[in-house]
């Protein structure tokens, strides 16, 4: 049956089209280059080892939040509770291991504290995932409600006090250095690498893309969409718990005031890095670029001694900018123009 081949389309895309799409997909690095250049102009101190190390420290928590949020965003959902989970799991660890009036008095070994802490992170993620994936609740409201409930519980059990100090071995992750670089930063970089592998080379990772890209098609093609969404939330929860471990180690304490309001920034970084808000597209390298970009901007502004509060206000603008970018990119702008 050797007929002439059937096809309507040109076999491969033109090279210019390919180049354009590569550029668009990696736009964040263009931005990073621009910011790096500006940084060099404003204050070359930016490039000192000291500062770069600082940069890494700043990016660590943001980086973990971005990674977790990306996983959830990829499946077409949104997780409001990551930062609260971070705080809460740190408190759980403290509650179990610290010698304090408001702690449990159990004084478990740090090993168990960490294991349970990760478990709690997973559990919170599971609750989110069940309500969103299996019952079909709106992700925003659900994760918002989860975060509020968890906050309530944490304040209730500790009355807002600060639990400190942690056992020695616990704070290693938060504080140790490898050469000039923080261990936690290297861990996060490692996690990025691991997830890059997962997203590209494992069925689970691919399923995240599929569910986010077209959930109806995913169902028709045999993918368990509910389970996939659940897993995304659970992984995000565990990553938040790791983040909690890092931060509480760094501060050597845990309290309900721990969160640094970075979640929205994380979201912005993810979007600039290439995540589509509807799901289905994400590049780990893009996330990495996004984190680097936001952290660089933040560090730069600090170095240039910009008013701290001004930075906060700018944060909101950055997010709006990121969203505008995403809206334009996905053509919503063109539709709106109608």
């Amino acid at each position, binding site marked *: *049956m050797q*007929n002439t*081949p*059937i*096809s*309507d*389309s040109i*076999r*491969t*895309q033109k090279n210019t089209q390919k180049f354009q799409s590569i550029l668009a997909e990696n736009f964040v690095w263009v931005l990073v280059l621009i910011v790096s250049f500006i940084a060099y102009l404003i204050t070359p101190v930016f490039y000192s080892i000291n500062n770069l190390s600082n940069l890494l420290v700043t990016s660590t928590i943001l980086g973990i939040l971005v990674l977790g949020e990306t996983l959830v965003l990829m499946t077409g959902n949104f997780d409001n509770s990551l930062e609260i989970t971070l705080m809460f799991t740190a408190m759980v660890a403290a509650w179990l291991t610290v010698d304090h009036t408001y702690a449990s008095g159990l004084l478990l070994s740090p090993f168990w504290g960490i294991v349970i802490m990760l478990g709690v992170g997973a559990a919170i993620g599971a609750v989110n995932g069940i309500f969103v994936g299996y019952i079909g609740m709106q992700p925003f409201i659900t994760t918002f409600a989860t975060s509020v409930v968890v906050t309530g519980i944490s304040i209730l059990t500790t009355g807002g006090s600060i639990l400190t100090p942690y056992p020695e071995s616990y704070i290693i992750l938060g504080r140790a250095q490898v050469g000039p670089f923080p261990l936690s930063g290297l861990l996060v970089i490692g996690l990025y690498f691991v997830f890059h*592998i997962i997203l*590209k*080379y*494992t*069925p689970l990772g*691919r*399923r995240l*893309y*599929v569910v986010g*890209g*077209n959930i*109806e*098609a*995913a169902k*028709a*093609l*045999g*993918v368990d969409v509910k389970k996939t969404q659940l897993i995304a939330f659970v992984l995000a929860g565990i990553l938040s718990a790791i983040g909690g471990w890092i931060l509480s180690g760094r501060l050597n304490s845990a309290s309900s005031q721990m969160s640094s309001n970075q979640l929205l920034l994380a979201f912005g970084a993810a979007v600039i890095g290439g995540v589509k808000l509807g799901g*289905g*597209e994400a590049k780990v390298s893009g996330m990495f670029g996004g984190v680097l970009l936001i952290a660089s901007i933040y560090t730069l502004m600090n170095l240039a001694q910009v008013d701290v509060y001004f930075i906060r206000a700018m944060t909101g603008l950055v997010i709006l900018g990121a969203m505008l970018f995403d809206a334009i990119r996905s053509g919503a702008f063109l539709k709106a123009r*109608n």
Partner: protein
Amino acid sequence: MKLHMPLKKDQLIEVLMQNGDVIIHLSGINKRFGMAQVLSDVNFDLRQGEVHALVGENGAGKTTLMNVLYGLVPRDSGEVFIRGNRFGSVTTSKVKKAGVALIPQKLQMLSNLSVAENLFINLWPRSKKTGLISWKQMEAQAEKLLVKVNLSIDPKRKMSTLSYVDQQMVVITRMLFAEKADVILLDEPTAPLVEREINLLFEFIESLKKDGYSFIYISHFLNEVFRICDRATVLRDGKVVFTRDVKSLTMSELITGMVGEDVELFPKRKHKIEEPIFQVNNLNVSPLIKDFNLTLCRGEILGIAGIKGSGRTELARAICGLDVKQGGEIFLEGNLLKIRDVEDALSCGVGYLTEDRVKWGLVGVRPLYENATLTFLKKITSKLGLIKQKEEMETVRGFIKTYDIRTTGPKQSARNLSGGNQQKVILSKLLGADLKILFLDDPTFGVDVKAKTHVYRIMNDFVESGNSIVLISSDVFEMVAMCDRIHILRDGSVGETYERGRITEKYLQEVLAHES
């Protein structure tokens, strides 16, 4: 194959199935939705290696039958056999496992992923060494598959960069080889295609047929039945009219089967057509409508005939402000109309009854009276800016009486009304807005016979009062009975035009069938 009479039909089928000839056998299928009997005692079977057409008008039951087979809708009674196995409860996953796959018009694919990945979603090939997904293997296997079915497509490309027909063929390939189906159900596959693409698709299907795969082919395009199908089953009003070999069938017989000798109740009207009142010039609506022209006279009902997907809905939506047009001018009574949105259109006196009642018709959670007045709030608003409640209720009660809307009262939630009554509310909403030109898109789809007559009567009243209607419909009886003229939509603009009395239902169906 002649067998002796003493053998009962089911036994006969079993024998055939055991011989490997009949793959799918449906017998005595009944399905009722509310008051409507959508399928009555339907028998259908599919033989191996055949392309079997399932043909019928809109609402005849084709899609429902396929949904019953595919487990999307439960049947009320009847038997389903696949390869000799009886399926008591039919679920999609069971049916898929049995080797049957449905390719709906809205393709189930991931457009942001590559062709190769789409072929292997959920079945990604793993590297033996690491256990991780091997993209190399995936692309190589994809290449092999594509070569096997003679498709010249680069597996590394994103699905979104392919044309629709290529996407279709890739999806079919996945079903056949990755999911190991050997029966494909095609639902209106050629509706969005041009001639060149249809040829490609048919070549594809022919070569697969030779390899032993079987197809059920649902289509409006009757000429395609003769091009590629071996047998054809005609459904009308939920019943099987006949199942015959295409070779021994003529187009005329096919159409008669589809259209029947029905007697619809169309109220008479005085046909008084006066001067031209409404004009559309050079209308362009991407992607389907190009240089469309229309002239409408006072007192006239003009029909626009075309299959769903020919752009007939798009042109109405654009003229009436629901969608943006890329070019064209609209004149009413000599004045150029500036229509940017529905509000503009309504204030000019041009209204549109939408196609999808559920999506575009009514606000279900709100009460009937709020829905019925939404288009003409200005009329019932006082100078102070408040709604005149008494007047509003009177107006709505008037609607209920005039159009015989069955409801517990104006305050009933719109979603609790039956389909026909919902349609009447939508009509009242439009008619209350003092329109001169009314575009109706499939106004009696899914409406019971009694309500249909009502709708026709409303249409007659409207044009007898000196207004005009453009009727877009798939129902050839409706078109022939109600319209003064019928434009045939071809390639995005008007092809032929037929005057009242110069065209029969059969002929109209035939004309539509040669549409491609």
